[in-house]
């Protein structure tokens, strides 16, 4: 009965969505991103997704975009205003938009809401995330090859599960190619955004002997630029940052939301949109390694790209056992690999990372 009801609602929803799309001819699509749009980083990549939608659908879509809509109860007004202006699809670009976005979706069953990074879904509230950790393994390999001191330093904002997952995969990648790797050092900025502190964190890690830096979701390229200044290699999430460290950019975990965005809008146009979850990775061209340094030897580069293909084909999983945590406890048994739920909620550090997580 319940299943039937759900299916019926889903069908009705599809009809509503497709008919409204037909009636309006142009699909009205709203994009909300949490910060100003820069040259690199999260909001930049989200905006590239928006541009791809505009290009791909041309006259069939009418686009409205707002940036710098942070999380918190105020973001709901922007969403509601978009809904009141007749939006058919709304893309929400911050995890912090989850609760207000879900309420919006419940009130407006005819709007397709597509939310980045959350874990709750509803009939017309879909979520998407990318497998940063897959690219992180590859960037970690590059770091493992490049370090001479055997010390890698990571700068991160807060110990969120996604961040911990990226950190773990990165370190596993580095360890896989460098048996002499010492403990990886970590600085938690404990600030959502502070360019000067980001740079100082990089300097602090270098002062402790790190010769490869990993700037993890910094929201600013200042640590990357600082690495160039100090002459140490740098790896970074989200975008190729070569322009900020022309000689010292080692590798970037490049994400690409364009295929996800285009697929989602197409689903709405075809009346096939449902409140599902997309977790896209290398296989879906949503993640990859980019900006590899020419300083890497040819065989090192080939090994990294070969590993990328292994992940794409499913032959390799960054979190395949055996993996032990800091205390030496086995967290992933040999012969198994972590499932998506465990990856999304990751709450342990693999051995070889010198920091602690709050419990």
């Amino acid at each position, binding site marked *: 009965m319940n299943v039937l009801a759900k299916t019926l609602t889903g069908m009705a929803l599809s009809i509503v969505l497709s008919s409204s799309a037909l009636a309006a001819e142009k699909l009205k699509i709203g994009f909300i991103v949490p910060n100003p749009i820069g040259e690199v980083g999260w909001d930049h990549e989200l905006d590239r997704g928006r541009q791809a939608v505009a290009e791909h659908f041309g006259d069939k879509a009418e686009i409205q975009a707002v940036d710098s809509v942070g999380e918190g109860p105020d973001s709901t007004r922007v969403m509601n205003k978009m809904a009141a202006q007749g939006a058919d699809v709304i893309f929400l670009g911050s995890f912090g938009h989850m609760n207000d976005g879900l309420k919006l979706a419940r009130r407006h069953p005819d709007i397709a809401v597509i939310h980045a990074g959350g874990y709750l879904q509803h009939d017309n509230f879909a979520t998407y995330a990318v497998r940063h950790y897959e690219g992180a393994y590859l960037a970690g390999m590059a770091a493992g090859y490049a370090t001479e001191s055997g010390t890698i330093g990571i700068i991160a904002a807060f110990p969120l599960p996604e961040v911990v997952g990226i950190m773990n995969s990165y370190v596993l990648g580095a360890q896989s190619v460098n048996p002499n790797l010492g*403990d990886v050092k970590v600085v938690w900025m*404990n600030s959502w955004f502070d360019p000067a502190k980001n740079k100082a964190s990089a300097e602090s890690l270098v002062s402790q002997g790190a010769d490869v830096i990993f700037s993890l979701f910094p929201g600013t390229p200042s640590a990357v630029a600082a690495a160039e200044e100090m002459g140490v290699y740098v790896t970074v999430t989200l975008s190729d940052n070569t322009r900020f460290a022309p000689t010292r950019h080692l590798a970037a975990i490049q994400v690409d939301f364009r295929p996800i965005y285009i697929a989602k809008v197409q689903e709405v146009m075809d009346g096939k949109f449902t409140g599902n979850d997309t977790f896209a990775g290398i296989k879906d061209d949503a993640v990859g390694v980019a900006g590899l340094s020419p300083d890497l030897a040819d065989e090192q580069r080939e090994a990294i790209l070969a590993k990328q293909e292994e992940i794409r084909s499913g032959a390799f999983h960054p979190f395949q056992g055996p993996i032990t945590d800091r205390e030496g406890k086995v967290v992933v048994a040999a012969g198994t690999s972590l499932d998506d739920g465990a990856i999304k909620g990751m709450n342990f550090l693999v051995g070889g990372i010198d920091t602690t997580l709050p419990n």
Partner: protein
Amino acid sequence: MDAFVFVFGGAFMTATPLLLAALGELTVEKSGVLNLSVEGMMALAAAIAFMATYNTGSHLLGFAAGAVSAMILSVVFATLVLFFMANQVAAGLATGILGLGLSALLARSYEAFTLAPLSKLDVPLLSDIPILGPILFHQDLVVYLTIGIGVGLIAFFYRTRAGLILRVVGENPHIAHSLGFSVMKIRFRAILFGGFMAGLAGAYASTVLTPVWSQGMIVGRGWIAVALVVFGTWRPLRVMMGAYFFGAALLGELAVQSGGIAISSQLMTCMPYVLTIIVLAVVSRDAVRIKLNAPVSLGENYRPIG
């Protein structure tokens, strides 16, 4: 680069924007005016200085443009409190909001642009001294200039007539007025100087310290500057030491973390703030000594009669 040099040498750079702004605010407060728009002035100057340096390639022009923009904002504040007799706390906050808004608006197409860093100057011979050399004598020009301005202000306040008059205006504007000094003019100049210094501070933060433009990059440094003035009990030397202490505490937290010492990182992040309260309590214990330096008329508007 070792951790000790990172903390105690880096503290000069971290402290410089705080100190520039704090010395400006100190002068304003010494004249009896509380200007809480430091954060906004710094933000505006940071944006303008960044754009100027980015387009001209000259840090000097960046600093000049930043200083002028913050001075313009300080004129808005001065007009409100000196001419319109607006409450100083409210006027400072209002002007600050204007500055923050203009900062984000004007530089919105520069998001995540970067600049070449300012080169460090090595003092010949001295910078070769082990440990102390790289800490004290391997800094950029602005760091040295800022210390120079601090020393200059000490001389100004306690060695010159103009400094004495400024302090009298802050202590008791009625007496200053009856002695024939224009309270308005003196306060106006002090506010303008405060704007100039906050401008240099913002310019340093965006074109030297970071040097990347991001909206909202000042993240509370203007407020810390205001705090430093009180922390230093309105004395330039103590403000300078306070700024350095704060800079070292901020970097010390990062050094402890990257050194892998197992203390909760959030606890460490709190340390500079906790220490500030404790040190403030220690230096403020003696109420009489505080009263000697705190401008009595701080925050009160003065309207000349007749």
